[in-house]
């Protein structure tokens, strides 16, 4: 909450930060999703004020943007942790014990998929398939893929991400 308020202070500052993104896509077609993606890369999630600013600048109603943001799993309305753990729950991982991996992390971090630890260190998510099925079960932390997981390996992997 505190983080959200801090970031929310001063709408002028936000529009300044977003200006570079708007400039990049000016005059092109179908740019709403790329703009949202880049804005999210910048803030880690899509704060209310940012959505409002994007709506004003691109001349879209907030409801339309909210519709897009909630449709795609990539967009987030809440602050996320420094490290994003995506545990694969695809078919290959499912038959090779992906559920156990997820349960272990849930217990260890004390959070459920979609949640973030209180210290903002980790956000836990599930993903339908990351296409590394040959190494099932797998998970991704940020952009790194870790495969052939066992519950013994997990503490060591998680520990590397501060």
């Amino acid at each position, binding site marked *: 909450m505190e983080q959200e308020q801090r970031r929310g202070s001063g709408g002028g500052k936000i529009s300044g930060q977003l200006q570079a993104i708007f400039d990049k896509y000016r005059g092109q077609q179908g740019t709403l999703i790329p703009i949202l*993606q880049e804005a999210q890369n910048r803030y880690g999630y899509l704060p209310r004020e940012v959505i409002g600013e994007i709506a004003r600048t691109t001349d879209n109603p907030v409801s339309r943007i909210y519709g897009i943001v909630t449709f795609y799993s990539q967009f987030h309305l809440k602050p996320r942790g420094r490290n994003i753990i995506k545990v694969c729950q695809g078919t290959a991982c499912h038959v090779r014990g992906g559920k156990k991996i997820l349960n272990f992390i849930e217990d260890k971090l004390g959070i459920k998929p979609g949640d973030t630890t209180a210290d903002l260190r980790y956000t836990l998510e599930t993903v339908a398939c990351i296409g*590394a*099925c040959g*190494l099932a079960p797998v998970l991704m932390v940020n952009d790194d893929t870790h495969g052939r997981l066992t519950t013994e390996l997990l503490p060591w992997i998680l520990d590397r991400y501060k």
Partner: protein
Amino acid sequence: MQFIRAHVLVCGGTGCMSSGSRQVQAGLEDEIARRGLDNEVKVVQTGCHGFCEMGPLMIIYPEGVFYVSVKAEDVPEIVETHLYKGRIIERLLYREPLSQKSIPSYDEINFYKKQRRIILSNCGHINPDEINEYIAAGGYEALGKALTLMTPAAVTEEVKKSGLRGRGGAGFPTGMKWQFARQSPGEKKYVVCNADEGDPGAFMDRSVLEGDPHRVIEGMIICGYAIGADEGYIYVRAEYPLAIKRLRTAIAQAEEMGFLGKDVFGSGFNFALHIKEGAGAFVCGEETALLQSIEGRRGMPRPRPPFPAVSGLWGKPTNINNVETFANIASIIVDGAEKYAEIGTEKSKGTKVFALTGKINNTGLAEVPMGITMREIIYDIGGGIVDGKKFKAVQIGGPSGGCLPEDMLDLTIDYDSLTAAGAMMGSGGLVVMDETTCMVDVAKFFLTFTQSESCGKCTPCREGTKRMLEILTRITNGEGREGDIALLEDLARGIKQTALCGLGQTAPNPVLSTLKYFRHEYEAHIKDHVCPAGACSNLTGYTITDDCRGCGMCKKVCPVGAIAGEIKERHVIKHKVCIKCGACEGKCPFKAIRKGA
């Protein structure tokens, strides 16, 4: 001129990278430089070899020696023994699991022997970040031939004659699709590549994009020429960061070389290519939804007709094909349609890339001619089932496909035979399951997926899959009711016939195919409250075996007091009290607590 006497190819696919190939490559480069060999030995990072199970993989040319599971610690030995002294390192060679024989060369390994690699021919052999390597391997020859020697109509005709069918799932003839787009009136047209590979258990598109991105780009430019489009989009899943990076590099190089841009090959033909990153929605693999998403909207399908060939991206005629489909085009143009059509069956031509995963020894990518049997793929290429367990089923085609039992193993694989058997080619994911996999649970798994990915636009899919999932959940919880099977079948038929798009129409397939071939498992869950595979925890009890030493740990940890027994005597679980939480299983120091029906 510098003389390079040896090339070391290190796999840089996602699979091998996560197994540590980056460290191997860095170590190798350091070691080679330290020994002053950097003028004669070149290290090349390649795309995926497909044999992800054994990664990180390395090939050393000119001998063509194939090393598997290479670790950073092995690097000094590789440089010293192989590159310096010229001896093969026996312990890093691949061993056939059955004969235990070590095999030095790539082509001699069973996993590769039965494959026919056309689309994957460059994957693992060239550096995907280097356009010259693709050109040296015959790349962009097809584009030159099409643009300078053939008319757009002739290119379309050639693709039609080849018999190529869409590799994304449904298998619509590609040449026909091109012709529709070509004949649609309009100045502005688009080519779109569907790289939103979302089927759980499929990663062939990812490997092609990471290992040989130019092949896909070349296919798209040729398509643009054939249908009269001057602009194209590749829609890639955001979950594939490496594929996106390699595509960006490839597009920039192709622009620099003049294969993309204005007046390609001096033919007057212009073509520009853009990348669109997906934002995470499985339904965007459906073509009309994908177009909505490129346009910046919610990716919800719309009814067809009008087909995209008539009214697609921003209302203009658009041709959409899958990654693997575009990857086939260059060889059709270079070698000719007749040569291409020699491979495969009467109605399914060419090769297909399958992703082998699950309880199989050799997981990875296999490109095989159409018409091969499932048995050959699973046993000859895949090396059989892990831990010598018994084969139970193979799931093909992802959430739209079905599960085939053992007596279907000799089915020859093509689009039509698979559909007739109640499965579907889909994108080509093959997930092998053994006796410990519960088929009702598998059906529930896929329904969970389609239900959560349903966009919610049409009622049959939105409500129907939810009701089906509720029934499956109650069956796997041991609360199945008389009549549930009939109800499932009824709902499945309704959804198949009335859903708006391919996602909904095929969503019931996993349930229908498991009901067709594994009905007894559903019945066992409902009538006998037993899960024959021992996978559904509510229907599976825990027992304490003879290994128990009576330490009492399990008794202490049991939250409901279901375990009885005196210290130093074998303990017993009271099944009526047990809530199957599994806490005791993890606590037992003697591994004496087992799950079983």
